[in-house]
Each structure stands twice: as C-alpha cells, then as structure tokens.
C-alpha cells in the first residue's frame, strides 16, 4: 500500500469528501495561502474553487457562528484554526451555540460542522501557541471531540467527522503531521467513539492521547528490553469515549498510566483516571497515575520547555515506580526531539 503522512491524509480526506459531496467546504484564516495550514489544505482552492476553500478575516467567533448558520442549512463546513489558542476566541459560539443547537431545536436541526484545531509544541512557541485544552471541549455535552494519532486514523476519522450530523472538533498535534503510514487510497470511515489498542501488553496499560502515543511506544520499546510488557490504548475519540476498551485493558493489566499532552489539573486525564478508578476499583494493583504538562504557562526557553513537557522518559519512570522497579539508566536511549528535524521558525 502507498504511504502517506498525517498532513497528506487530512488533505486527502477533505478533498475526497469535497469531491463526493458538493455541500462540503473548507475555510479559515490562511487556509488557501501557500503555507496552507502545514500543507493540509494545499491545492483545495485550485481544485474546488474559491467558493469552497477560502480565507477569512481574523474573527474566529464570527466565523464559527457563520459555520453554524451554514451547517443548519445543510451545508457541511470545515473550519480550520492553525492553533487551538486562537480557536478559544470562538468559545462563545462553540460552547453556547454549536454544542446545544440540536438540543434546543428538539433535534429538528442538525449541525454537520467540523472544526479542526492544531495543537502542539516546540521551538519556543511560548504560552500562546502551545495549548491543547482537550478538556475544555470534552467538558461540554453536545460536542464530539477527536484526537487521532496515526495517518490512517486521521483520514478515516476526519471522513467520518465530515459525514457526521453532529459538530466534531478534531485536535491535530503538529508533530504528527510528518508521520508516515500506509493509508488506503479510497475514502473510508473509522467510526467515531471507538478506541484502538496500539500495542498489546500484560503488565501495565498506558492510555495515550494524541502525540503521547508516540512517546508511549518508545517507552514500551525501552521497557520491553527489561521484560516489562506495556499495553497502549489510544482512545482516538475523547468524546464520546470508548470506555469499555480502556476498562477491559486495565482490568487485564491491573495498572494504568494516563499520558496526556495537556495540563494535568482538571485535564482530560482526570476524567479518564476517575472513570478507570471507578470501573476497575477492585482490580487495580496501584492507583491510576497521570502524566501531563507542568502546572505553569508554557515557557519559551528550551531548557524549561524540556521540563514542562512529558515524554517517553516520564512514562518509563512512571511505570518503573508503579511496578516497584529500580530506575534504569536511560543514557543510551534515543529520545525523540522534534527539533532535530524542525529548526523553526514555526
């Protein structure tokens, strides 16, 4: 099968759905310009015309309300934000309007709106270009929230999101954009609300969110050499959550670490930990552990950025502690550094 990277998979999903359904259109700040949101909207204006792929003024809340108005009239808008930090300017429309429109019309109107939000880190992005804010949106009834990790998942899940009659927010971690994978060429759906076991294991379950699944895989490789078997569960959809998959995994392993790329305090990891603790109470051999950002705005300087973000090392240490193992010498291990490939400015 041919390989495609995550950004290309997003582009392909949108292009194929635009091809299939003339009601689908894409818009947002900078969407049709040459930088094309990390290449994810490249060529769509040329292919489908400026009426179906267009730039907007800088006014996130209004453009979200515009999308809602178009969606309840049967169009299928995809609104793109190059950072979730800018999407929060649309919080009124998303949390007060989009999320309860179906509810307040007694189900008479549908809201087939997709909002893509880029999250991420690195190269001194600082406090206003690095948030994730998953739980700000999973907290709200009436929104579907997805955070695909792999290229094949993002293509299928975005396709499903575009075809969905409910509003869907799609979180895309910037560091995933270059990750290649075999991705089917034809359109397909990966159903929303269904998680995935990325790696089966026996001793401990790591529930990874978005980028943290990449770190979890590395941690699992490192621990495998010491005879520790790590199971990685990627919920993929955060709301509605595939609770059964996670609960079954943790019941099998008896231990769980939730690895989030977001703040821990009141984060989505708290929701996961609470549900797991409740549903697996008698089977847990240790309290559920959470890993995430340090509780501070994101520092710009690299030395502190490294302290701020969790990575595979954090996960390894967490598992060692949970299993009562001595901390291994990790000096020889090759930890991922995006900056080796990415040298700014963004």
């Amino acid at each position, binding site marked *: 099968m041919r390989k495609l990277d995550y950004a290309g998979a997003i582009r392909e999903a949108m292009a194929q759905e635009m091809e299939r359904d003339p009601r689908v259109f894409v818009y947002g*700040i*900078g969407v049709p*310009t*040459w*930088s094309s949101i990390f290449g994810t909207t490249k060529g769509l204006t040329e292919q489908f015309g400026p009426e179906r792929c267009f*730039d*907007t*003024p*800088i*006014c996130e*809340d*209004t453009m979200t309300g515009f999308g809602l108005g178009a969606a309840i009239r049967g169009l299928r808008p995809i609104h793109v934000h190059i950072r979730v*930090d*800018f999407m929060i*300017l649309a919080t009124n429309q998303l949390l007060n309007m989009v999320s309860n429109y179906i509810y307040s019309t007694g189900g008479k109107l549908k809201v087939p709106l997709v909002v893509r939000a880029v999250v991420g880190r690195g*190269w*001194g*992005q*600082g*406090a*206003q*270009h690095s948030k994730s804010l998953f739980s700000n949106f999973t907290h709200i009834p009436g929104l579907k929230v997805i955070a695909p990790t792999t290229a094949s998942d993002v293509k299928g899940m975005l396709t499903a999101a575009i075809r969905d009659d409910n509003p869907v927010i799609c979180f895309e971690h910037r560091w995933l954009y270059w990750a290649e994978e075999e991705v089917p060429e034809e359109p397909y759906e990966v159903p929303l609300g269904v998680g995935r076991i990325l790696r089966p294991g026996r001793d401990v379950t790591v529930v990874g969110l978005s980028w943290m699944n990449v770190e979890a895989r590395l941690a699992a490789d490192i621990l495998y050499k010491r005879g520790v078997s790590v199971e990685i569960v990627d919920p993929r959809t955060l709301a509605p959550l595939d609770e059964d998959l996670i609960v079954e995994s943790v019941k099998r392993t008896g231990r769980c670490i939730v690895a989030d790329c977001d703040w821990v305090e009141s984060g989505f990891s708290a929701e996961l930990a609470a549900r797991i603790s409740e549903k697996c109470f008698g089977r847990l051999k240790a309290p559920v552990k959470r890993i995430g950002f*340090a*509780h*501070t*705005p994101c*520092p*710009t*300087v*690299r*030395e*502190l950025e490294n*302290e*701020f973000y969790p990575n595979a090392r954090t996960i390894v240490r967490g598992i060692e502690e949970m299993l009562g193992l001595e901390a291994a010498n990790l000096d020889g291990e090759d930890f991922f550094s995006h*900056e080796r490939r990415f*040298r*700014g*400015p*963004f």
Partner: protein
Amino acid sequence: MKDEAIYRRLFRTALLIRLVEERIIALYPSDKIQSPVHLSIGQEAVAVGVCDALRADDLVFATYRSHGFYIAKGGKLDAMFAELYGRKDGISGGKAGSMHLAAPDVGLMGSSAVVASTIPHAVGAALSFKRRGGDRIAAAVFGDGATEEGVYHESLNFAALMRVPVLFLCEDNGLAVHSHRPIRQSYRLIEHAAAYGIAGRRLEEGWDMLAVRQATLEAAAHVRSGEPFVLEIATSRYKEHVGVGEDFHFNYRTTDSVDAWKRRDPLIVDAKLVAELSPELEREIDAAVAYAEASPAPGRLELLTDVI
C-alpha cells in the same frame, strides 16, 4: 537645525532597531535563538516616530512584532538579547521570548501573540489615567489585521463612551501573514472610527520618521485632551511574516511594493548617516549579545516560579 537634531535622534534609534534585527538574522542559523521571531524591518520608522512623540510616562501595549517598540520605548538591549537567547538575565528569564516582550519600567506594558488581544488593555489603562487626572495617555499598537477582530470594534466603542485618553495605533503593512488587506476588509479604518465619534487620520508616509512623529504628536495632543484617536500609518514589512528570511519566492506578493518603500527608506537612502552611526551601534549590539552569551540558562527550579 532643530529638525536636523531630531532627525538624527530618530534615525539613530531606527538604525539601532534595524541593526538589531539584522543581527538576529545573522545569529538565527546558529540556533541560539530558538523561538519564532517576527521582524519589523521596514517598519522601524513607525515605532521610532511614535515613541519619540509619546512621553516617557505614556504606556504602550503591543504585539508579537515589537522588537522595534521595545527598543524605541527605551527597553534595555542586553536584557532583550538575553530574553531571545532564553537566558536567566532576560527580561522574563527566557520564559517570554520574542513574542511577549514587556518592559513596564519604560512603559511597554506587554505584547501578545494572540492578534488584537492587547487593544482593550490600553483602554483600561487609559481609564486609570483619567481617574487620576493628569495627561498621561495609553497607546494600543496593532496591525491592520487586528482591526478585523470584534475586540477592536468593541474597544473603540467603549473608549468613545468612556472618553478615555487612548491612542489606537494601526501599523498597516497591508498583510496578515500571507493574506492581503482587500480580501479581509470591507471598511476604511478612519471612516469606521468616525462612526464611533472617534477622530482619526491615515498617514501614507510611514517611512518618514519625522512625519510619523509629527502625526503622533498631534494625535497625542488630542488624546491628552481626553478623547480617543485612531492613527493609521502605512508601512511595509520587508521580511517574511515570521522568521528571518524573505518570502517573495512564495509568489503571494511581488518585490515591487517593497522596492518602492526601499527607495524612500531613510535607513537605505541616507547611506552616509548609516555609515557614520553604524560602528557605534554595532558595538552596542556586540555588548548586548555578549551579555546574553554570558548569562546562564535558567535552572530547572525556575519552571514553577512567577506562576501565581
């Protein structure tokens, strides 16, 4: 002759800003500055003319493109380079970086990378001046793109209602990242401000430091009398939106528009004065860079300081 002295003063600061940013360009490939930089090369005359016209005790609220305003308002060069380097002796110990420069001691109250988000801060600060009496003013500096955000309109409305001494200063480089102004805006800024009862003026000669200074002096006089004012200054961004390169090869704009500015840009045209002043300014920059190089990286414990 007096004008001549003012010109030299303005020119010196403008040249300092340009040389600082050219130094940033030179240093960038070394990875010593590991964060995004939004250069104001081409736009220096605005920062310099405006800040020269403002009083030292007036306040400025700015954006991610604010190396120029930081320097023109009197911010320390060594602390700025240390901040860009992410060092302990930086303005904010390296935690803020280029996009969030602040120097409250000289009246630069903050800068934000979320477009338009500091505009209402100037309105609030202006209210504090009004409460206290006196004739200090607050200036909100923002780009043409920022005027598309609701918060800009709402700030004008409230400033007009409250009659607070705030200067709205728009740096119009015609671009928001790679999007040209006509596809984003259906209004003209000064006519739009008039709808709120706010006086305004557009200055086309944004390369001319003396003209910017004069326009700001007049605008500031109006604001000191207790009325908001919108000053829109045309300018030109020579470099790419973010980063240290040029962006003409992406074909979203031509070199023509920028070349027309360069032909009038005193920092290019007045080569004699550039040659005369550069050596001393370069030494100043050398010293600031050396200061940054010598400053230690922040320790791990710094991570959790200054949060609350």
